[in-house]
């Protein structure tokens, strides 16, 4: 169990002041995060629109653990899950007197770099989900950056001192664009290590070999991962969420085509909606395990309540938190992926990641978001039982986190400043010698770090070997071998106006990039973009949509019946008559 069990910290009620926004007028207001009857709630009052409250976590104990500060005997904080990130130079100086989040762009107060760059490729889509903000038909205009604009956005991200290693194309449905494979190539040419598409599977599922051909072409051009909309394994579930019948065969064709093409990095993304998809949480895990040769991960996304006003009762009825998701996983896997031992905030591995990046000479991925943003667990195959188990069975995670933090503290200055012993004495001639000295220094650091890791490894097996290889050669092949047959399960809770915590937004590591008409690129955190800035920004970049574009994927009227699909005529959740 958690290392805070039995401590006084658990007995104290959680309380923190923060800033949020009014769900009605969106003005920034003060908010409190408080503990009430074993849960954590946000309470806030707008002078014009009154009092609001919303559940932040259904487990006060889990929440408090993720906000725990480990202190030394003098009371100084040794480590916590809340990390300060590295920063890039700002793109703008925030001059809106309302402050955060009205200065996005990205302003000088933002305290994380971008780890995942997002670009909306289009607001066209072959589906018409009722909760989706991206829909050309409803918007009445087209948002679709040209290749030149995309090039500009990618250049913007990659030219930063600490560039994002990964890019994700979003939409609408990105694969409705005919030039999608070219865009993947462009991303690789810009140096993105990981090219990801958030997709409902459209391009990859096409029949008569077209989907397979498309999958192969995308792979050849540089696509690495599918972030694949996957609400469950029952047709009825998709019918409720997407308004389309018999979607499972569509989804299965994507998996089959990826398998045949050799694309083995699919992340199943389930939007968790109370009473609709929440009962499928375990099903998705089983499906992932059964397709472990191509599925690398699952991301649960508790539904965000954007797009309209919700009453207090609606909120109570619909709100799902990360803690709810991990409780459901616990229940639906008979405790095998338990809330008490398997899940950690994403920020847990910040220092660990920095050490690996420095010692293995690979680009760092900075997970310095807020601890409330997401939790993850990592499943590996136990060679003795052939069963998937959380990686925590192999390592003592808290000890490793502790060790990594202290180790990084000792060596981080080396990342900024290499040893210049001979250069100082011999000038330029000494540079070559210093290269050798730095190489030897890294080897001894690797040895020390590995020895530290060994201390806290509980079982022998291939994992430690794979980890050692990553550290020794830093090659992509080692990373692939490490992730081969493993499953990263995470739960990411995006914010909406009801639960927005500005402490979270200013640490956001997932940023949208939009090419603006004046030639600049607007960069904004995912949650502020979707909650606040999207309408105004889209109006600036909107293009006129011709009739052909409007009609091409119009599923709202049920005019276009896809093979094996039948559109539910209300274009969304099928209501009982």
């Amino acid at each position, binding site marked *: 169990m958690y290392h805070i069990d039995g401590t006084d910290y658990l007995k104290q009620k959680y309380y923190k002041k923060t800033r949020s926004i009014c769900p009605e007028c969106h003005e920034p207001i003060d908010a409190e995060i408080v503990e009430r009857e074993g849960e954590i709630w946000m309470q806030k009052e707008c002078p014009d629109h009154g009092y609001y409250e919303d559940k932040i976590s259904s487990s006060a104990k889990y929440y408090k653990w993720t906000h725990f500060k480990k202190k030394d005997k003098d009371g100084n904080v040794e480590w916590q899950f809340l990390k300060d990130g590295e920063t890039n130079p700002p793109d703008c100086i925030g001059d809106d007197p309302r402050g955060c989040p009205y200065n996005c762009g990205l302003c000088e107060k933002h305290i994380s770099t971008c780890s995942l760059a997002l670009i909306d490729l289009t607001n066209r889509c072959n589906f018409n989900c009722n909760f989706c903000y991206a829909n050309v038909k409803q918007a009445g205009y087209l948002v679709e950056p040209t290749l030149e604009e995309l090039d500009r956005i990618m250049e913007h991200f990659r030219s930063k001192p600490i560039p994002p290693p990964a890019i994700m194309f979003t939409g609408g449905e990105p694969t409705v664009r005919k030039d999608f494979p070219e865009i993947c190539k462009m991303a690789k040419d810009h140096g993105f290590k990981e090219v990801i598409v958030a997709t409902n599977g459209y391009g990859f599922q096409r029949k008569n070999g077209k989907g397979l051909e498309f999958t192969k072409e995308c792979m050849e051009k540089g696509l690495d991962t599918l972030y694949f909309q996957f609400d469950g394994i029952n047709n009825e579930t998709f019918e409720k969420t997407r308004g389309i019948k018999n979607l499972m065969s569509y989804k299965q064709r994507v998996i089959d085509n990826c398998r045949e093409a050799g694309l083995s990095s699919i992340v199943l993304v389930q939007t968790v909606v109370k009473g609709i998809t929440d009962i499928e949480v375990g099903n998705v*895990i089983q499906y992932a395990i059964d397709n472990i040769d191509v599925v690398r991960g699952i991301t649960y996304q508790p539904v965000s309540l954007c797009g309209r006003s919700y009453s207090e009762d609606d909120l109570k009825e619909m709100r799902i938190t990360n803690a709810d998701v991990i409780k459901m996983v616990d229940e639906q896997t008979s405790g095998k992926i338990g809330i008490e031992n398997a899940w950690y905030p994403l920020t847990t591995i910040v220092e660990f990641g920095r050490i690996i990046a420095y010692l293995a000479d690979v680009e760092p991925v900075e997970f310095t978001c807020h601890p409330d943003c997401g939790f993850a667990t990592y499943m590996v*195959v136990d060679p003795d039982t052939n069963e998937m188990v959380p990686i925590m069975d192999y390592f003592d995670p808290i000890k490793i986190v502790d*060790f990594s933090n202290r180790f990084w503290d000792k060596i981080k200055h080396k990342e900024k400043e290499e040893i210049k012993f001979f250069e100082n004495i011999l000038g330029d001639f000494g540079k070559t010698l210093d290269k050798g000295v730095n190489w030897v220094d890294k080897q001894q650091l690797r040895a020390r770090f590995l020895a530290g890791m060994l201390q806290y490894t509980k079982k022998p097996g291939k994992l430690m070997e794979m980890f050692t290889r990553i550290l020794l050669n830093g090659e992509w092949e080692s990373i692939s071998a490490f992730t081969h047959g493993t499953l990263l399960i995470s739960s990411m809770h995006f914010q909406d106006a009801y639960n927005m915590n500005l402490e979270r937004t200013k640490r956001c590591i997932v940023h949208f990039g939009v090419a603006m008409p004046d030639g600049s690129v607007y960069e904004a955190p995912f949650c502020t973009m979707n909650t606040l800035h999207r309408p105004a920004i889209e109006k600036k970049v909107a293009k006129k949509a011709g009739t052909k574009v409007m009609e091409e994927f119009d599923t709202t009227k049920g005019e276009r019946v896809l093979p094996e699909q039948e559109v539910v005529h209300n274009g969304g959740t099928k209501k009982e008559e």
Partner: protein
Amino acid sequence: MSQEVITTKDGLKVRKLVSLKPSTSEEYREAIMHRVDHFSQKRDSVFNNMVENILVKGLELILETKIRVDDLLGDQKETVQDFIEKLLFIGL
């Protein structure tokens, strides 16, 4: 059996997983279990580097020994770990 299937009143199949065993083909399962061998069959694999392989083997042996020693140490384990950590931090 790796799951119990419950059918809800709406006809949805809900599984309660009681085992997390992959049902992928035998061939692939082998590849998961012997991932380095699987990758090193490729001619230019980084896993064919002799020096690296010796180092990895060495570490494997150390790890096995360490786990056996951990069992013997019992309550003393933490003290020994602290001591080794101090050694690892010398000069940093």
